[in-house]
Structure formats: structure tokens, C-alpha cells
């Protein structure tokens, strides 16, 4: 909502300054979004008298003027306007002034070799209108030398954001009422121009849709003279950002912007038969005033005559029956439409208008007759004509809400003590009626008031939220109790463990291009947005890796040598009830150089699958997963290199992580250079620690020293080292407490189809040291266990 100070003062008797008014508006919940003070914009522009005008020696279209500025010698000014001539009065911008329309700073200059000391301005240059055909011509009595801002009556314009719960403030009068309640002045009664109505309304008015249009009032005014509006009306509409059109249109807009009351004027000559509020027929068309044709549906309310639809009720009038310069007889419409239906219709048609904004929030049901009389009176006063009596179809809601209010609630909910008398004053000044026993009757225009809490809000916002004192929340005794859940602790710990491993935490979009999401999709259908903001942000991610791969690509394209990124976030799947199943996940992408070329290390080295494995295990351990029990298995997914990727599982079914090298086809799809290693940890699969106490199980380091024995086995080339290690580990569970592969070799000396794996076995004696016979027995068990896998001890 925008309005000028003058307009506000039409309704509010006040001596407050603009600054005081703005502070008050902010304080009562009408947030000031801006104040435009034309006096500031027009600083440096003054009224000047053109003394002489002569052709520019070097330019046909330019003139050289001498201009009296009211002080000192006349100035020479070069001007290109065709209407510039000796004797006229206009507006001169002096050097240093800023042209409002384009921000240009005026300075003394030479134009085609002739000195110019300022600029004579057009209406458009000063943002006072569209006209740019010539410079402003002021009346002969305009005082030369006066600041143009003062002469023009520079009127500050205030813009406020009206929250959707306050339709009553969608007109300047409502804002004046709120300010008066705040104590900024006195609300003036609405000035109703007198007029004499005669004769019944010659047009039949009906509402056949009492749900969508409970009330439809009309009146005909015959013999009006349409034309341009008077200056005061134009100035008010312009301050609200409305373009003046014609008197009849401007007056309906004035009623809407000044009093929050949309109305419509039809050219009576274009109507035929009864004018009826009814439901639209499916597929019915109307050409609206915005020159667009809308196809209507049966849930929408329209105003129509015998022939066609003339108005999308409460939203926009029709082009066909709108008033024009030649309109002589008008039918005025003031109606009450169901707010929900207006909103639904507007959304469906994608059509916004000032009328819709007001009707869908709810206009004042008590302001139909008065609004119509006000509009009629203004029309008769300015456009002439003879008004008929009002015809009324239906009736607007009339049951006022009565709330049993306990003024003590203001303290209990609002946290501020407001004397009862003051509470009563505030409510009454806003139009509420307060009975002796605090039954509060709400004005019908305040459809936002539902219960006592709303009345507290009214009292507190007018009394002043700044008077609410801070009160400490009650506190539990002693030190604050821990609040984090196991899942939260897991994520926090993992985040810091990953960062401590040299990875940078990224936050990438939850949505992906569909192709990228599909590339990583499971067997479930993806969540794909119906109204994405772009094709790149359309499908919810089924994996954290695509977003990280795309980041790695961006980084590589920017010349980054490497990206070590991780992210902790959700993957989006579907649960049984049609809702989402969002799985907490940690993703890692390692791209580019693991180590750059170096004087010690030689060539740059890329990341490999064991870098991914190391991170996966390290982070799973940090997450408290039983890493000693994990199995390395396949099926990391089609996005991974089939021979250089694996899953880490707890039992054959529970996959805790996948890791490895990204598949070349995936690299190609994401248009990024490899090799790239990746890890995904499935945090929801990590078993929670159950009932862990602070105290650890008892432990004393063994008194006897451990011994190691090395074994080199010849095994089939296809045997997984992990299987051999597990077999050896299991050969003697008491004595063997560690098995470590320290060499893997194939080639010379190893038969074709085989490889050699050397392991170091750590043996921990218990109470007594191992005897030779013990060691021999253990060795035999190890060899036998390995043999079951086809491993043969090398000589």
C-alpha cells in the first residue's frame, strides 16, 4: 500500500511528522517499506524564467537560452525542447542536481561548443509523468527562483506492507484508524457528499450464487460526463502508484485505495437484461480489462447479463462493458464475495488484481451501502448525472463475533501489564465494542479476530511491544542436561572426523537434474518436483555422490588440482504411506591429485580405491560401527568400477558403506575427468550402541610379550586376501590375536594362475610362554586352515 501524507491527512487530523508517523506505523505492525520524499528528489531544481531563446549556432534542434534563476546574473542554458521559448517559465536543474528519472548528475558543460549551466526539465525527467515532448511549462505567476519542490507541493509518499490478516488496512482510511488508536491524531468521519436519489434502479440485479456472492448492490447513474479527473484525485491515485484513467474509473479506484472497498462501474449501454451474479459455465470465456481472455470453470463466480459474462467476480471486470470517455449511463456494483472462492478463482486463473487482494482477504461487510453512497455522491459531484435508488440482492454477513475476554490474558500471554481502562480504550478506538463484563464485539471488517489471543495482540501492538520486558525462561536446577540424540551425536562426530581426515565439508542441493538422479537411482521411483525452478533442480537426490561429483567437476573446470569433499545429508526415498523415507548419509568424493608431484614423491598420484577404503573404515570406526566384524563384499552399484569397488557389510544383508573408484561411464555422464574415488556411508544402517556405560570392560595389558611368525602361502590368483586372513585368524582363536598381510606377489617364481601372499601372525601367550611344541601345533593349524582355501605353504 502506497499513499501520500496528504491523503492520510484527509482522514487523520494530526500534527505528527512523517518520521513520527512512520515510527508509529512500524510499532503497530504496518511495516514501512519506504518513504519517498519528492522534496529530496527535487533538490536543486527551481523555477526559472526564460528571457531569450536563440538558435544554437551549430545545431538545428538546439536552442541557447538565457534563463533568470531569481538570483545573480541570468544563466546560459542549451535546450533541445521544441517548446522552449522566450517568456515561458519552466523548471531548471542546476549543476549538482540529480535527474530523478536517470540518476544523472548535472554539471556545467559545453554542448556543441556552447556553454550550458543547467538543464530545463521535462515531466518525465522529474518522474512527474510520462510526458517527454517538451519541457515543463509553468503558469506565468510561478515565482521565479522558488524551489520547484515547494512550488509543486512535494508530498511524501509512504509505502507500508499490509499483512494478509488486515484487509481493513487495505485502504488509507483503515490505516488512519489504526494510527488514531495509537494516539497519532483523530480519525475524521467519512465525508459523505450529499445527492438526491430518484426512481427505482432500472436494471434488475440478482444473485443466483448466494454462496459465492452473498450480496450484490447496484445503482444506476444516468447522464454522467466522463473525462479526466481533477488534480487532487489524480495526485492521490498517483501517490498510490495508480495511473489516472478517467473520472469514473478513478473514482472506483479511489474508493478501493482510500477505503479498501472495490467497486465496479459498467457502461449501462453495453448491458442487456438482468445483471446477475452466478456461477460460470464450464468453458465460458471472458475478455478481461487486461485484454486477456480467460476460460472459466463452474466453481467461479461471475457477473453476467443475458448475453455474456461481464466480470470475473471480485477479480477483474470485462473489456466489453467497461466505462469509456463516451459513457453516459453507468451501473455501479458493490458486492460481497466469498473470500475463499475469490482466492481459489484467482489462483486457478493466475490472475492478480487489487480487487482480488482485497476480496480474498475479506472486505468490510458493513461498508456496502455507505461505500455505494460515497461513490455515487462523488460521481454526481464531479461527473454530474441522476442517481437511482439502490437495488439490493442478498445480504452480506452480519453476525458480529462476540468474544468473552479476560483482560488479565494480556499479561499472561502478552507479558505486559496494560490497565483495563487502556485496554478498553484501545479496543474501542479500533471499532470493538466492549461491554461492562468484557464481552467484546468485533467489527465485521476484522475477520482476522478469532479469539482472546487476537484481542491480546490488538492491545499489545497498540500499547507498544517495546513495553514487553524480557523475562527469563524457568531453568532446570543445576547444569543443563545433555539433549542430543544418538543420531545427532553420530553425525556431529562423523562430521568432525571427516574434516580431521582432510576432507572439506560441502553442502550441495537436495535436488538434481533428473538424468543425474536417475544415474544413481535405486529401484524406487524418484521424487521429481512438479514445479521445479529449473531442470537442474528437479529430482530429489537418491545419493550424495552426484551432487559431490558435480561440485568436483566445477572445481576441476576452475583449475583446482583436487577436490576432497564430503557431505552429510539425506537421501530421499519412499515409504509405504506415500511419504518420504529420508536416510542420513555421508558421501565422499576424492578427485584429482592425492599428492601433487614433489621433490620427494616424484609424479603426482591420483586417489585409488584403498584411499576410499581407508576413509570408509576410519569413519565407520568413528561412528562406532564394529569394523572388526565387517565383510568386504561386492555390489557397490553400477556407478562404480566393477573390479575396484566394494561394500562393507555387517552380515550379508546390512550394507554400512560402499566405496571404490567411480565407473568410467559415470565419469563420462558427469563430464568429469577421472580417476575419482568415492565413498558413501549409510548412517541409518550403523547399529546403535546399546546401553553402553561409561566404565569400560576390565583390561590389563598381557605380562608376556607377543611373538610373531611369518607365513608365505601360494594361493590361486582369484583367492581374496581377506578370505585367507579370516581363515588364518580362525585357526586358533585363543593364541592368534592379529594377522597382517605384508606382501602380495605374482610373477617370476610363482606358478601361472597363482599368487603369493605373505602374512605376519601375532601370537599372544596367556599365563605361560609358548613352548616349541605349542608353536609347532599353532603353525600346523594355520597351515591346515589355509590349505582349506587351496593355499600351500611356500618352502
Amino acid at each position, binding site marked *: 500500500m502506497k499513499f501520500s501524507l496528504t491523503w492520510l491527512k484527509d482522514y487523520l487530523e494530526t500534527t505528527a511528522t512523517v518520521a513520527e508517523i512512520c515510527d508509529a506505523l512500524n*510499532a*503497530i*505492525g504496518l*511495516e514501512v517499506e519506504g518513504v519517498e520524499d519528492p522534496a529530496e528528489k527535487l533538490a536543486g531544481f527551481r523555477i526559472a524564467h526564460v528571457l531569450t531563446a536563440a538558435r544554437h549556432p551549430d545545431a538545428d534542434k538546439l536552442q541557447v537560452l538565457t534563463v533568470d534563476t531569481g538570483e545573480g546574473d541570468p544563466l546560459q542554458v542549451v535546450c533541445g525542447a521544441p517548446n522552449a521559448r522566450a517568456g515561458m517559465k519552466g523548471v531548471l536543474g542546476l549543476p549538482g542536481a540529480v535527474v530523478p528519472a536517470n540518476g544523472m548528475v548535472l554539471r556545467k558543460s559545453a554542448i556543441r561548443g556552447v556553454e550550458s549551466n543547467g538543464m530545463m526539465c521535462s515531466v518525465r525527467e522529474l518522474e512527474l509523468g510520462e510526458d517527454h515532448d517538451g519541457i515543463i511549462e509553468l503558469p506565468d505567476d510561478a515565482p521565479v527562483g522558488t524551489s520547484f519542490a515547494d512550488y509543486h507541493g512535494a508530498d511524501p509518499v509512504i509505502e507500508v506492507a499490509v*499483512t*494478509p*490478516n488486515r484487509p481493513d488496512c487495505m485502504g488509507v482510511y483503515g490505516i488512519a484508524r489504526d494510527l488514531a488508536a495509537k494516539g497519532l491524531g483523530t480519525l475524521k468521519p467519512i465525508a459523505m457528499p450529499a445527492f438526491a436519489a430518484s426512481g427505482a434502479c432500472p436494471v434488475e440485479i440478482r444473485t443466483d450464487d448466494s454462496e459465492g456472492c452473498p450480496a450484490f448492490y447496484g445503482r444506476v447513474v444516468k447522464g454522467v460526463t466522463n473525462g479526466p479527473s481533477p488534480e487532487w484525485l489524480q495526485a492521490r491515485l498517483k501517490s498510490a502508484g495508480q495511473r489516472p484513467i478517467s473520472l469514473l474509473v478513478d473514482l472506483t479506484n479511489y474508493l478501493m485505495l482510500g477505503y479498501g472497498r472495490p467497486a465496479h462501474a459498467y457502461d449501462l449501454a453495453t448491458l442487456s437484461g438482468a445483471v446477475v451474479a452466478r456461477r460460470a459455465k464450464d468453458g465460458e470465456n471472458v475478455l478481461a480489462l487486461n485484454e486477456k481472455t480467460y476460460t472459466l470453470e463452474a466453481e467461479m463466480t461471475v457477473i453476467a447479463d443475458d448475453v455474456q459474462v461481464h466480470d470475473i467476480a471480485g477479480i477483474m471486470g470485462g473489456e466489453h462493458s467497461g466505462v469509456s470517455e463516451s459513457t453516459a449511463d453507468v451501473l455501479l456494483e458493490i458486492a460481497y464475495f466469498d473470500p475463499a472462492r475469490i482466492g*481459489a478463482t484467482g489462483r486457478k486463473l493466475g490472475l492478480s488484481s487489487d480487487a482480488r487482494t482485497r476480496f*480474498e*482477504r475479506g472486505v468490510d461487510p458493513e461498508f456496502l451501502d455507505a461505500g455505494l453512497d460515497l461513490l455515487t455522491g462523488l460521481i454526481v459531484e464531479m461527473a454530474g448525472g441522476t442517481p437511482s435508488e439502490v437495488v439490493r440482492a442478498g445480504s452480506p454477513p452480519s453476525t458480529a463475533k462476540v468474544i468473552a475476554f479476560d483482560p488479565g490474558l494480556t*499479561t*499472561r*500471554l*502478552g*507479558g*505486559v501489564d496494560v490497565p483495563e481502562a487502556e485496554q478498553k480504550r484501545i479496543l474501542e478506538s479500533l471499532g470493538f465494542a466492549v461491554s461492562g463484563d468484557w464481552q467484546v464485539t468485533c467489527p465485521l471488517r476484522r475477520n*482476522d479476530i*478469532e479469539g482472546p*489471543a*487476537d484481542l491480546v*495482540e490488538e492491545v*499489545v501492538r497498540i500499547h507498544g*511491544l*517495546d513495553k*514487553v*520486558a*524480557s*523475562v527469563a*525462561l524457568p531453568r532446570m536446577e543445576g547444569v543443563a542436561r545433555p*539433549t*542430543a540424540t544418538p543420531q545427532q551425536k553420530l553425525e556431529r562426530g562423523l*562430521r*568432525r572426523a*571427516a*574434516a*580431521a581426515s582432510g*576432507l*572439506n*565439508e560441502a553442502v*550441495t*542441493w*537436495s*535436488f538434481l537434474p533428473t538424468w543425474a538422479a536417475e544415474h544413481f537411482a535405486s529401484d524406487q521411483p524418484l521424487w*521429481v*518436483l512438479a514445479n*521445479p525452478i529449473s531442470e537442474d*533442480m528437479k529430482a530429489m537426490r537418491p545419493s550424495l555422490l552426484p551432487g559431490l561429483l558435480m561440485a568436483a567437476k*566445477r*572445481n576441476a573446470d*576452475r583449475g*583446482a588440482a583436487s577436490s*576432497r569433499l564430503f557431505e552429510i*545429508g539425506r537421501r530421499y526415498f519412499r515409504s509405504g504411506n*506415500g*511419504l*518420504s523415507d529420508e536416510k542420513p548419509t555421508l558421501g565422499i568424493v576424492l578427485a584429482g591429485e592425492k*599428492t601433487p608431484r*614433489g*621433490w*620427494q614423491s616424484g609424479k603426482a598420484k591420483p586417489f585409488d580405491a584403498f584411499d576410499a577404503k581407508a576413509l570408509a573404515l576410519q569413519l565407520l570406526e568413528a561412528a562406532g560401527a564394529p569394523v572388526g566384524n565387517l565383510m568386504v563384499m561386492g555390489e557397490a552399484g553400477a556407478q562404480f568400477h566393477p573390479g575396484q569397488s566394494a561394500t562393507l557389510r555387517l552380515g550379508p544383508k546390512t550394507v554400512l558403506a560402499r566405496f571404490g573408484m567411480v565407473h568410467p561411464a559415470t565419469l563420462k555422464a558427469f563430464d568429469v575427468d577421472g580417476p575419482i574415488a568415492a565413498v558413501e556411508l549409510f548412517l541409518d544402517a550403523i547399529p546403535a550402541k546399546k546401553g553402553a556405560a561409561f566404565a569400560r570392560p576390565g583390561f590389563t595389558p598381557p605380562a608376556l610379550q607377543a611373538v610373531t611368525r611369518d607365513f608365505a602361502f601360494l594361493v590361486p590368483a582369484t583367492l581374496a586376501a581377506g578370505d585367507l586372513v579370516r581363515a588364518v585368524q580362525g585357526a586358533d582363536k585363543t593364541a592368534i590375536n592379529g594377522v597382517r598381510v605384508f606382501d602380495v606377489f605374482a610373477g617370476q617364481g610363482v606358478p601361472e594362475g597363482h599368487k603369493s601372499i605373505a602374512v605376519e601372525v601375532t601370537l599372544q601367550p596367556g599365563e605361560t610362554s609358548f613352548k616349541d611344541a605349542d608353536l609347532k601345533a599353532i603353525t600346523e593349524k594355520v597351515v591346515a586352515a589355509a590349505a582349506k582355501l587351496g593355499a600351500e605353504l611356500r618352502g
Partner: protein
Amino acid sequence: MTDIPSQTEAALAAIVASATLDALEAQRLETLGKKGWVSLALKTLGGMSPEERTAAAPAIQSARAAIAEALDAKKAALEAAELEAALARETIDLTLPAQAASKGSVHPVSQVMDELAEIFADLGFAVATGPEIEDDWHNFTALNMDETHPARAMHDTFYFPDKTVEGKDVLLRTHTSPVQIRSMLDQGAPIRIIAPGRVYRSDSDATHTPMFHQVEGLVIDKDIHLGHLKWTLETFFKAFFEREDITLRLRPSYFPFTEPSVEVDVGYSNEGGRRVVGGHGDAPGHAWMEIGGSGMVNARVLAFAGLDPAEWQGFAFGLGIDRIAMLKYGMNDLRAFFDGDPRWLAHYGFSPFDQPTLSAGVGARA
């Protein structure tokens, strides 16, 4: 019999002149070795009469002691010189670079979420979460925005074509407020929670991204009022920005889910082109900046969430996490948050060891 003193003198000179351990060993053999002249001289003592022995022995014994001592001293000197030479040969250029371990970082959004959790834990708030793909009942209806509510249109909602089994619309949550509803339904009252997380609006320009982070706060109890809300936000901001001069201004506003509704402004000043939170917004050189929405939870919302509004009341607030992170740590481009650029992450990210704690101050200074 040769002249022992002069022989000794010659031997000592030769020892001092030995340049290597080998030369020194040759001197040792010549003197104290089995066939060395000192050893031989000592042997002659056995064949002497006591008188002769008494006369000859001291000279031989002292020659032996002097030579042995000289040999030891020279040996130590030569060994020290050899070690020194060896060490000199092993000198390396330590201006050469060492292998650098890569330095990881925690994203500012995560860091600030940890700070929030730490501060609010002290005030007795737990951290709650909820789904990001929501149904319209939790995101709108239960928050007092029925289908026709004009405020719904202001939310720029992302929708999915899907429906829940109950036929509800499925959407990306537009705010963290549905977590209020879920938490109250799950836990009842009294309750104190914050709910940080990702939220989505179909809005994108220089200062808006379609995904961003919010934190919701909710306190429901028997006698909570606006004064508690103001104190809680003040207390939080003081702890978060680690300054005592935080000044809040409450302005009446409108949110369907609160009544009364309050917009929260914080006073700030401009220092070096940056907004610095602190001070009174009306003080010279200061201004107010909107920092969040809040209010007393609407009775309808309480009822939707299964609580009796006659018994329970409380407040809720919502803050932009990215926004307060930017204010505290000086980032100026929201879009960079979601880019994954290691240069930005290294600059604005945090060391893993900057774990926010109350005792050390939750913030990490540059």
C-alpha cells in the same frame, strides 16, 4: 738400556701427530702392544733384583701411564672429528617443503547448527528433526493455513505430483515449522525444542536460493508469554554473537501459526562495509535489521498438535541459519554456500577442532 724418557717423549709426539685412528693404533702397538717397547720394558723388571727394580720401575710405569692416557685422549678426539665429519656429510636442505597433510574443514552451516545446539541445550532445548518432503497438512493446515489461506501463496512452494495415501499433497517443506507439529504430537507438552534444517522455496535471485536453512524454536508450557520469547532470543543472540549489547526490537506482524505474531529486528551498525550486530538500532550510525519471525503459538495450532489450548501456551520462532552465519562470520554471497568450492570452504570453513563449547565460547574466531 735405552733412554726411557726420551723414548716416551718421542712416542707421545707421534701419538699427537697421528691423523687417523689406524695411525694411532700403530702407535699403540709400538708402545703398549704385546711387542711394544713399553710392554717389553715392563717384562725386564721381572728379571731384576729388587734394588734394580725399585730403581727402574717408576720410570717405566710412568711412561706407560703417560702413553696410555695420550692414546685414549687422541682416540676420543679422532672419533669426535670423524662423527662431526659424518654429520656434516648428512646435512640436508630443510628449506625444502615437507609433505603437507591436507586440511579439512567443517561447513559454516554445520558449525552454526552446532553452535545453536550448544547454546540452546544450556537453555534446556533439545534438537528435533522432521522430514523435508512433507505433506500439506503438516506444512500448512496444522499451522493454521488451510487451502484457501492467502499466506499459502506467499510460500512459493515446491510440489510433487504425488499424494499421500490419505490423499494429501506432497511438497518440500517451506519452513521448519512442521517439526513443531510433529514434536508436539510425539512428545506432548511441556516441550522445548529447536529444529534446524533444510527448507525450500521456489525463489532464486542474488539473495535467495531455492534451498536454505532455518532453525525453529518452540517452547510450550503453562505460563510462557511474550516476555519469555524476547528474553530467549536476546539470550541466544548474546551468546551467539558473544556480545552483551545485543538489542532486539519486536514489531507486530502476522503469521498464521502465531497470535500475537512478532517480527524480530536486531540493532546493527556498518563497520568497514559490513553489518555488525550490536547496539540500539535507533542510535547514531545504527539501524534495525529483520532477523526472524516469532510469536505466541496460535491456539488452533496447539489444538491441531493435540494440546489443549486452555491448558498450554508458548512461543515459537524461526531464524535463517545461513543469514545469521553470514552476519557472524562475514560471508556475503549465499550462493557460494552450496557450491562446494574448496577455496571457499577452506576460507570460511572451520577446523574440526573448533567444536563449539560453552566454556570456550561457542564461536570460532578468525
